[in-house]
């Protein structure tokens, strides 16, 4: 009889404990919070993988400050080679063992993974890629996504307006990468030209393929257009090459460049004085500014390999700072739902003064849509100057 009673009590205990066990939050223990990153550490976009290295460094820094609500951050980084299928495989592998992802990278990867977050109730914090991908999603599918990336179209419109305002450009040409990114910028420039109502003419639209290497003909087309300002929407490699080629043929228009060309240390290193006078956007604080240098010092001490990639490191550190803020606000009782609530409560947060104010909310997932216009001053001293403070566009979702 006693045996039967004991068995009954045990069965009841198990029955009540089972749902609690089933509801255990993935990646969260009493002492640890697991964060899973998938990023291109190899392949064509490997340079951007340094964002993940900086995220690891910031997590280590947080751990050294006793973690978050008594828990240490454990970051796992997996290489996806910028291949969408591999990125989805990595996310699928990690979704039951980590709390969230930070810094998912690349528009093709985001497109392939856009349903993953809502289907698995899996938080994706600060993905890097065209925000239009998320803007096209129904609102209810964005519950677990928090984005701080500028819209290419808004930025393109801003650049052409600034070209007219700052240097009095009458004719502009666009040199753009023939993909989602470049075409977005082109669309924005077209929109800006329309808004300016005849003050500025769009003299040429010159596309470049990622695989192109020789850009002499592109430079000649730009020169033939007679544009007094050229707006750049390529990769760093193509941006540098086309500026060099334009100089070779004696064409020196005013340059206005999109934020992927915003690392002045790299641009000065590759172009020297040819980059002087160029206007370009950045997303936040940059190397050489006190707030940024403080963070750079921290992350490069932990990961010395980030030296020479300071601006990319800042982008990565900012992403992890935002995620950490969400974790702090979620409190000790950490679940994916409490993390979402924590992220939603973020208002006017500037990520250690690395970004413009970020605001999320129950109906807002595009926390920041902003750029900041800079001017390259001197290659010898790596000097740059801010032209306009943060230009904050309307959030799209």
């Amino acid at each position: 009889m006693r045996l039967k009673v004991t068995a009954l009590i045990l069965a009841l205990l198990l029955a009540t404990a089972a749902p609690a066990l089933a509801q255990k939050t993935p990646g969260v223990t009493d002492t640890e919070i697991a964060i899973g990153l998938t990023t291109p550490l190899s392949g064509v976009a490997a340079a951007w993988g340094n964002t993940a290295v900086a995220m690891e460094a910031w997590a280590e820094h947080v751990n050294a400050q006793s973690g978050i609500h008594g828990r240490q951050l454990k970051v796992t980084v997996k290489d996806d080679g910028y291949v969408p299928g591999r990125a989805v495989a990595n996310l699928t592998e990690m979704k039951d063992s980590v709390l969230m992802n930070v810094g998912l990278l690349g528009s093709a990867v985001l497109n392939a993974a856009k349903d993953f977050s809502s289907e698995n109730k899996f938080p994706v914090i600060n993905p890097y890629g065209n925000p239009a991908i998320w803007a096209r999603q129904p609102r209810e599918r964005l519950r677990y996504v928090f984005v701080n990336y500028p819209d290419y179209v808004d930025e393109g419109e801003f650049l052409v307006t600034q070209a007219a305002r700052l240097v009095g450009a009458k004719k502009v040409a666009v040199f753009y990468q023939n993909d989602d990114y470049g075409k977005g910028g082109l669309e924005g420039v077209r929109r800006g030209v329309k808004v300016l109502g005849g003050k500025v003419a769009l003299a040429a639209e010159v596309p470049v393929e990622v695989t192109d290497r020789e850009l002499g003909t592109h430079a000649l087309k730009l020169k033939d257009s007679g544009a007094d300002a050229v707006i750049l929407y390529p990769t760093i490699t193509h941006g540098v090459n086309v500026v060099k080629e334009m100089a070779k043929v004696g064409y020196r228009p005013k340059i206005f460049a999109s934020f992927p060309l915003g690392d002045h240390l790299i641009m000065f290193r590759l172009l020297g004085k040819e980059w002087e006078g160029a206007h370009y956007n950045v997303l936040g604080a940059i190397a050489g500014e006190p707030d940024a240098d403080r963070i750079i010092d921290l992350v490069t001490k932990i990961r010395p390999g980030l030296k020479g990639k300071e601006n990319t490191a800042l982008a990565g550190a900012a992403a992890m700072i935002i995620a950490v803020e969400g974790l702090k606000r979620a409190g000790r009782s950490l679940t994916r739902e409490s993390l979402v609530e924590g992220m939603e409560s973020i208002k006017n947060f500037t990520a250690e003064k690395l970004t413009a104010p970020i605001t999320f909310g129950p109906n807002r997932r595009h926390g920041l849509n902003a750029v900041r216009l800079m001017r390259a001053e001197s290659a010898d001293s790596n000097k740059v100057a801010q032209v306009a403070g943060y230009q904050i566009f309307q959030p799209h979702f």
Partner: protein
Amino acid sequence: MDLVESYRQDLALARTPVTRALLAALLVALAMFPWVAAEHFVFLATLVALYSIGVMGQNILIGYTGQISFGQAGFLAIGAFAFGHLRIWGAPFLVALVAAGGVAALAGVVVGFPSLRLKGPYLAIATLGFGVAVYQIFVNWEVLSGGRSGLAITKLSPMFGLSGRRYEYYLYVLLLVGFTLATYNLISSYVGRAFAAIRDSDIAAEVNGVNLTRYKLLAFAISSFYTGVHGALYAQVLGHIEPQIFNIAEAITLFVAVIIGGVASVEGSILGAAFVLLVPKVFADFREMVPIVYGVTILIVLIFEPLGLYGRWLKARLYFQLWPFR
């Protein structure tokens, strides 16, 4: 002893009871897999299944017919975008799949014409040009590629109470089984023999009555059909396609899979597909060292097993057949 006494026995897929038992065990294992493996392994297995179909198609062209082609990324894109548009227009999955393969096969015939006059590296370059041209067409012709945002493809509605991942796995494995059987039959038929004859010596093949024009074009069409289906299945799995996905790297990956798996081998195609997908995944934690580890693994396999993974499989099989003797 595996003594073959008739042509019928020679053509049989599984000749001995042991082989039949092993085959049955493999099928049972495949059926059980999604119930015992973690979800990401099921997803990887799904990817391996769809890649295997593409590699098999590539093997029909390269391995069995001897026509070196680097245009597979183009056929992948054609299959994927044809499938995407058809699905958006409301075509059922299987109809869209067959049509995607059909459109890619038509493109294969068009590309096949230069193959009548070109051989070896010259054909490789011509087909490479085709792949690049297709990429450019999709990038620049937004009506085809869906413009800046690409094409979003509706997910499959799972049936029989299965989860999405399991349903996709069973469907893709079933398709792989179908394509594997079709390939075995093809290579054992007159057509397959004609392909092999062309590979070994096209002049001798023609002298023996093989119509070179017909069979070279047929090889291109069949291979492209497989690749188009591969592209369509990949599009369905990802749920979204854009031209950048189908770049030259994809064509090289398929080529590597054929060589690593084993030229002119159906089993090798599956092993090759598994290799190119699983090796980078297994070594994903090696981070930036992944390409080096991947490259070194390819070197090691080719140095120690010039016949590819299929060669290793043959040796292992022979070992067990002769055991305990050596």
